[in-house]
């Protein structure tokens, strides 16, 4: 296997008694679009700041291209950070902001001008090169911050909530734009976000952080299909949790009916557990299904491509969400109050300790 671009090895950061980052190890490959996903306060920014060189790890080490960079100051690391606050220089124009990092490299004037020009084109702000940051919209500022970091062509670009300050529509556009730019420049991106949907859309791989610890790392598909913990299952996408208990070597639902599923190791007889299944894995009827449940439709929502049902069932205190494709719903008129049976396979059921 080739050497990873960035290797984070058992890294810790403690602030007094608080473990902001707790024994995290990660390998990030060249050209990867990597997302750090976690709730507010989970240590995402702290981890990023250690990679950029603004915080010295309490323990562990960071290797870039195989070399330990833990003690190298930020201005000597081939790593750039796009700040959560953008931190643009208010007294400089857009072009001057972008040129700043190149001037620090003492590049010839002509080269600086050419690269700034090119960058302005990439972020589509050539018209506004002479504006000061406070004469720009939030979305424009975000682009300048990106350009300012990107123009240095770092080995690794760190982005702290790059789309956090944008409205929903712009976010959607910028997610694709960021991916395009990353691909075009061939630079490794590490993006921090607390938005799981954003991570799923953009990233090649995702690491989930919780209270400073790494919960799971994998491709969006792996994380979505095979979450390793109840927290991850809940955090990513929508998930139904059915309370259950281990009895006689099988999983029993609240009502005592067995649920067919692979039991993970370490669940003892009598232990409390939950069976988790995604809404889109439930289908109408029970033909060919390993499991089934019957419930009353409490609410319905039509989303164009699909139809969502909330089923009230004795199997779960919360309504069970069902997502049917429009085709599947076609043959059968459904209305609120109807009783329906849905089935799902054992393969699509994940079991976690309660």
């Amino acid at each position, binding site marked *: 296997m080739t050497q990873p671009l960035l290797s984070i090895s058992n890294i810790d950061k403690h602030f007094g008694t608080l473990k902001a980052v707790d024994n995290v190890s990660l390998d990030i490959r060249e050209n990867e679009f990597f997302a750090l996903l976690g709730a507010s306060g989970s240590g995402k920014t702290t981890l990023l700041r250690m990679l*950029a*060189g*603004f915080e010295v790890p309490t323990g562990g080490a960071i290797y870039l291209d195989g070399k330990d960079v833990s003690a190298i*100051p*930020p*201005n000597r690391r081939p790593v*750039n*950070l796009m*700040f*959560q*606050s953008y*931190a*643009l*220089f*208010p*007294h400089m124009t857009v072009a001057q902001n972008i040129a*700043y*990092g190149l001037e*620090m*490299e003492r590049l010839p004037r002509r080269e600086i001008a050419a690269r700034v020009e090119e960058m302005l084109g990439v972020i589509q702000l050539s018209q506004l090169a002479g*504006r*000061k*940051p*406070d*004469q720009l919209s939030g979305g424009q500022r975000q682009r300048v911050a990106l350009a*300012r*970091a990107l123009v*240095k062509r770092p080995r690794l670009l760190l982005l702290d909530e790059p789309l956090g300050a944008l409205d929903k529509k712009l976010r959607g556009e910028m997610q694709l734009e960021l991916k395009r730019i990353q691909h075009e420049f061939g630079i490794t991106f590490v993006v921090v976000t607390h938005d799981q949907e954003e991570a799923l859309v953009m990233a090649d791989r995702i690491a989930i952080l919780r209270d400073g610890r790494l919960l799971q790392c994998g491709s969006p598909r792996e994380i979505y299909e095979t979450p390793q913990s109840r927290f991850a299952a809940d955090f990513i996408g929508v998930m139904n949790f059915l309370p259950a208990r281990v009895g006689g070597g099988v999983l029993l639902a609240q009502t005592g009916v067995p649920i067919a599923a692979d039991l993970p190791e370490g669940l003892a007889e009598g232990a409390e557990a939950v069976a988790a299944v995604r809404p889109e894995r439930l289908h109408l009827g029970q033909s060919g299904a390993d499991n089934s449940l019957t419930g009353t439709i409490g609410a319905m929502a039509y989303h164009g491509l699909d139809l969502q049902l909330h089923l009230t069932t004795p199997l779960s205190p919360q309504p069970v969400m069902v997502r049917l494709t429009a085709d599947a719903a076609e043959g059968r008129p459904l209305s609120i109050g109807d009783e329906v049976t849905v089935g799902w396979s054992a393969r699509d059921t994940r079991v976690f300790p309660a």
Partner: protein
Amino acid sequence: MTDRKPLYLMSPALAWLTGFMVIPCLLVLALAFFRRGIYGGIEYTFTLENIALVFDPLYARIFLKSAGIAGLAAVLAVILGYAAAYAIAAMPRRRQPMLLFFAVLPFWSNYLVRTYAWIVLLNREGLIAAVAHGLGYDGELPKLLYTESAVVVGLVYNYLPFVILACYAPLSRLNPEMSEASRDLGASGWTTFRRVVLPVTVPGIATGFVFVFVLSIGNFVTPALLGGGQFQMIGNLVYAQFLTANDWPFGAALSMVLIAIMMGLLTLQTFATERASGARRQET
């Protein structure tokens, strides 16, 4: 339509200023255009002689000297005050108010008391001399009190708290991530200071500088007490015209030029502040 409310709210202050400041000042300044009576007093015939006299080398030299002293005091105060403000702003947030309070504390005591304190310090038998002798220095100490340097020291000391406050305001508002961004982009600590921190905090520096300069150039207490009798700044000259020489028209003429200089500087400072804050938005 512009909102008129601010105008109503401002009017009492405006009326006060106009009635008790602007009008009396204008009345006094108007005297500059009249002749001085032979036995003092004023002879109401129009003349430009007083204004012309201000530019006489004798008086122009005092103006220049005053400007030099005020400029030196302002530069020193800005350097010391900026450094102090920078240090305070770098402290943990919750300790900053207390540090500021101590920095500004002398400001609340009486101006004269503060200035007399310097006489006690600089005097031939004063504290500094005593310390020097106590340390075993027997030789003749250079004259400290009643010198130009003593005046500069006194002015710097008196106005330093204001400079600290003026510089602290923009420094404390500075987003620390801005300095970090500069470091991240490859700048050293010094370059970061020179290219990011300093330019962004220029308004504070300009305010501090102009404040010290304007108050120093017209000051007559400090030069009178610390500069000794032989030493005259423009403020002393004005004072003397009104109170001893009894030449009100010439005093008014001197004041007028002084005020013109101050106004010019204040305008420049406002301009500099606006420029730095990028307040002049382009309409698009």
